[in-house]
């Protein structure tokens, strides 16, 4: 509601006169910010490499992260650096960087992204088609094609260059982008001139490309914009990586055991410094205990395994009290097993529960009734695959909210804090502690499924052969058929599997089964041993797949062939 009031002219005048004296500060600063933003934007547009997102920075500044008076280590990083968009990458930057790092031991080199002139001068003369092609797109090529002196050097120096070059080029790749191919060709040509090798089949592909590439080039000229760059980076399903595989590398796969032994024997780098870091954290133990007792729970984060630190905490502080240690990284851990060990071993309760929620209710009731009960819970990797689900976290959060349950946990995953919404976070009532230890994650990565393909192969292979040994000859034949078919289609990324009807037809032709019933019985057996997987396609047809990666399958077939 506003009121109307008589104001003499005189007063209006004085008001106007007075007002002009006062600076409208706020507007001015706003203007300044706008101007700055504009300038920044211009920079961002002109500079492809450094894309700083100012908006994010503003937000971070508002949160007060940037204005930290002094972070413990004196280096504060803005969100803009950590959470950037994807930017298009040149394919060989990694090798480039590696050679840079290798060439200049001890000191750092800012990567020099400018094209070296000699590289552009290396326009090939052997193929007139390609000359013409590159002539039209000389500038564009700079973006994508970059031969690496390092790789070249290595290739030339390699004792069995022939074998290596074969490994690189003979493998067919449907996904590869033309530029990549071109580069490969270029490299190949150089290799061939040196080693006087034969011409490569890859060249034959070249004629089909020009028209499509030209349009692409036009498109790319327009894409100077940051936004479009983002979509460019995200839209293409093609990948700019080389086709080399570990298999073709002469190295054998390391088994879990040898890996362990090798690492055991190699000395840990910077052991003294890591020890110092740990000692720093160990001095916090009694503070942690105090804060646990005052109703907070503690979560540890930072690079490096926190297993040893927590173990030390356990042995030095918790010897006299009941405590539960949960190895979250253990592949078959569940909330239920955690709750079970509480009810069965801590509360000595015999009996089962209908659901984890009932069990939780029982535990909460017991703890509320008996105030002398106390329980320390240590969870290594609260953010592990098995525990990161919404329901598990909810249950654990409720458990930790009990005043006589003291939780101390560690997290490692970069997105771990996303597990918790406001409600869970307030149940957990965390106090965060940064404990960057740099210790290797020995325990956490020791389970087979947490490792990359290098190891998973050996185990899967041995289990495959084991199971198949116990089957009849016909059954093995059936499996081999399926495996062969799958390998034939390994380059088809949208390979759905072998349809049941086709499979039956093939089996019949090979005299392996006589009716589809016998085949079905056999398939059930495979399925029980998890040798195959079935899934229904869009058309309702049943497709069969072997859920093992191709290299393992190849190994398996080779081995089978040896046996036969």
């Amino acid at each position: 509601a506003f009121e109307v009031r008589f104001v003499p002219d005189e007063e209006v005048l004085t008001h106007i006169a007075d007002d002009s004296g006062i600076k409208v500060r706020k507007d001015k600063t706003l203007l300044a910010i706008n101007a700055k933003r504009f300038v920044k934007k211009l920079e961002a547009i002109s500079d492809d490499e450094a894309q700083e997102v100012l908006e994010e920075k503003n937000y971070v500044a508002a949160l007060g992260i940037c204005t930290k008076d002094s972070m413990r280590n004196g280096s504060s990083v803005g969100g803009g650096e950590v959470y950037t968009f994807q930017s298009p990458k040149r394919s060989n930057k990694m090798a480039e960087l590696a050679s840079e790092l290798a060439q200049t031991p001890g000191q750092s080199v800012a990567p020099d992204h400018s094209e070296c002139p000699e590289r552009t001068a290396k326009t090939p003369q052997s193929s007139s088609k390609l000359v013409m092609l590159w002539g039209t797109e000389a500038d564009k090529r700079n973006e994508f094609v970059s031969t690496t002196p390092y790789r070249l050097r290595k290739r030339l120096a390699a004792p069995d260059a022939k074998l290596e070059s074969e490994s690189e080029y003979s493998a067919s790749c449907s996904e590869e982008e033309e530029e990549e191919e071109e580069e490969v060709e270029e490299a190949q040509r150089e290799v061939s001139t040196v080693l006087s090798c034969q011409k490569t089949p890859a060249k034959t592909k070249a004629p089909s490309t020009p028209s499509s590439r030209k349009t692409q080039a036009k498109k790319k000229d327009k894409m100077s914009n940051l936004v479009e760059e983002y979509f460019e980076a995200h839209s293409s399903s093609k990948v700019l990586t080389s086709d080399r595989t570990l298999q073709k590398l002469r190295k054998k796969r390391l088994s879990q055991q040898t890996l362990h032994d090798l690492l055991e024997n190699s000395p840990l780098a910077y052991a003294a410094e890591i020890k110092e870091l740990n000692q720093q954290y160990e001095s916090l133990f009694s503070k942690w205990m105090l804060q646990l007792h005052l109703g907070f729970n503690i979560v540890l984060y930072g690079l490096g395994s926190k297993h040893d630190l927590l173990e030390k905490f356990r042995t030095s502080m918790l010897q006299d009290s009941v405590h539960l240690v949960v190895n979250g990284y253990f592949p078959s851990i569940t909330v239920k097993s955690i709750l079970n060990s509480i009810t069965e071993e801590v509360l000595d309760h015999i009996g089962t529960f209908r659901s984890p929620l009932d069990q939780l209710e029982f535990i909460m009731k017991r703890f509320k009734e008996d105030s002398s009960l106390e329980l320390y819970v240590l969870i290594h990797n609260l953010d592990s695959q098995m525990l990161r689900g919404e329901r598990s976290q909810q249950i654990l959060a409720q458990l930790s909210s009990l005043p006589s349950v003291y939780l101390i946990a560690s997290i490692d995953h970069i997105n771990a804090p996303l597990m918790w919404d406001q409600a869970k976070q307030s149940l957990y009532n965390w106090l965060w502690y940064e404990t960057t230890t740099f210790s290797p994650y020995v325990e956490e990565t020791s389970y087979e499924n947490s490792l990359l393909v290098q190891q998973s192969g050996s185990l899967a292979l041995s289990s495959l052969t084991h199971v198949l040994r116990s089957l009849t000859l016909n059954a093995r034949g059936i499996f081999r058929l399926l495996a062969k078919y799958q390998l034939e289609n390994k380059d088809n990324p949208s390979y759905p599997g072998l349809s049941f009807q086709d499979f039956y037809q093939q089996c019949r032709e090979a005299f392996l089964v006589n009716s589809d019933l016998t085949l079905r019985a056999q398939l059930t057996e495979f399925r029980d041993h998890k040798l195959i997987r079935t899934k229904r396609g869009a058309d309702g047809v049943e497709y069969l797949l072997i859920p093992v990666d191709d290299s393992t399958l190849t190994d398996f077939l080779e081995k089978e062939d040896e046996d036969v």
Partner: protein
Amino acid sequence: AILQGCFVFKPSPKKRKASRETVEYFREGNSDAEDSELRFATCQSLWKQVKLETEQIEEELNKQLFDNLVNFLMRSHSEFQEKTTEWTCRMKSREIPTAALVLGVNVTDHDLTFRSLSEVLQNNVTPYIALLQAKDCPGIKHLMQKLLGQLMNCYIDVDSSEEEECEQISPNRIRCSMASLISWYESVTKKTDSETPGKKRNSSRHWQSPPVVVIFKDMESFTTKVLQDFVVISSQHIHELPLVLIFGIATSPMIIHSLLPHSVSSLLCIELFQSLSCKDHLSTIIDKVLLTTQFPLKLSEKVLQVLINIFLYHDFSVQNFIKGFQLCIVEHFYSHPLSILCCQLEEAKKRVSSLSQNQCENIRRLPSFRRYVESQASEKQIALLTADSFLKETVQKLLEDLNVYHENYFPVLRCLHVFTSSLPKYPLGKQIRELHCACLENRVWETEEYESSLQLARMLNKSDLVTMLQKCVEILVSSPGKEFDKIVEKLKEFLTQFQKLEEACQERDESVSSQKELQKKTDLYHLQKTLLELKESRRSKKLTKFEVLRFEIVDYIDSLVRNYLVPADHKTLHEIVYFNTASVLREHLNAAPRIALHTALNNPYSYLKTEALRSDGGSISNKAPDICIVYKLHLECGRLINLVDWLEAFSTVVMAVEGPAADAASSDQVDDVIHARFIRAVSELELLGFIKPSKQKTDHVARLTWGGC
């Protein structure tokens, strides 16, 4: 061996008794352990007081809302109780009375509100209350089960044990349907109808047929189907069962209509209730807890800023704010040996006299005390630095000063806030907390904002000025400070002067208004002319009496501010009562784990202090830990990373470090070790969530982040 992920460790029963007290941990972490017990006790008692106070505040704030709700419940089923049979009534009673309780986005605070709400209802209206949460009710069956379970249990709780046998059947085994609920309700109310005189207590508290209240704590998260079914079913039985629903809503009341179709929502007779906004709640808490002399511990500007930022930018949760304050208390008492003096003045004085020599040294080491000593005459300096008894005396005096400072600070701050909060554009902030922060940060009268707000204050009109002065007088009179008598007098004098002015004005007014009548229209030309004239004349023109008085008042307020609102860190011994390590607070409450990872991976030197790792700029040296090198290399890749290329790049870097000597050695062995190291580093990156295995191409991994480029 049997693999398992959980291990329970139980100490032997003998040992278990030796479990330690909390205070021992407090003592253990402190280097100077003396009087840590007393410190801990002080800390605990302070926290208890704060907790009690905040709970009381919340109760008071919620009172209005709860009263309204209780009224609503009483009204809602008056027809049911009167058993009217009128047709209109029956038509109406098809609708379920529903209270939509808009609670705001601070979900974490809701639990407490609901708990106290159900308590209030239990005491005043009905014993039959069911609190439902969306996560317990994925289907209508679960909902009914939960509902019946809670209702029947509460019935048992209220009544004595004699009924327990007949009600002992666990709710799981009863067929959970509306019919069983109704029959239960009937049996219960019949019992209370014919109850023995011994149970009158119950019936006097509740009414004849108390309503059954069902509270949906988080209405938004319920599935539409469940809610719909429940509403439809229960509306069929509303004339047999006096049901009342309460929806807890975090967003806006519109959600009811978007969740429920019209046919269902028309079965509800909704009344809206608005709870207090969390911002107001916070303001009250700050006002009553932080801006008083009641609690000895004070927060410095930065700490307060951190807490408020977490509130405003993260959760709007008052509970979390209070928890943050708790952490401040704990941290302060834990880390500061002199915090033992952080208590009420009388007690503090007593404690000063019994300080140990060590503590005296601690006092001498305080920066603010050193400044104080330097400002003293030389013989006094010597006395302060050598004689403990003299030091103690001085400290007592200084503590008293500090106390007086606080007693004056807060009322004057409030007075200043009265002025600044009514200025256009709020140059010093709308809320008193902003003003408080500004005053704590540095000398407020030196800031630009203060300057401009004074200028604005010089343009206030008379009625505003009068009301402000009156408010200030009220504030100052009600505050305990001893020095305010004079100020109050002065302010009152201003007020009387205003009154005199008014009388004088009224006489003149008549003449002025007649004069104004003459110049009716002002066009642009004339306006400009008069403006110019005015500008000329302004310099020479005498100020009116009112203006003179206004200037006087503003100048007086200014002098008050300069006198009393000195920043706390200019005061001697402020370290004892002010908690000011904001970084600790932020580190523990609002941590940034990803930034820590980023720093560790990009710049390992910041953690591992060896010269080998030292580097300038953004890049790392090639002697960095394996994971850093692998990370750095992977930053150069696009969406997919070829493991072979990666391995090769890695081994190039590592080999270069190890030098030609290693090359000469049996290359096969070295290769294996490097391979193993690479595998470890890569699987560590996978654990950290930077990459994941990909099926798109053989021996490739997919990159999951784009940061750190």
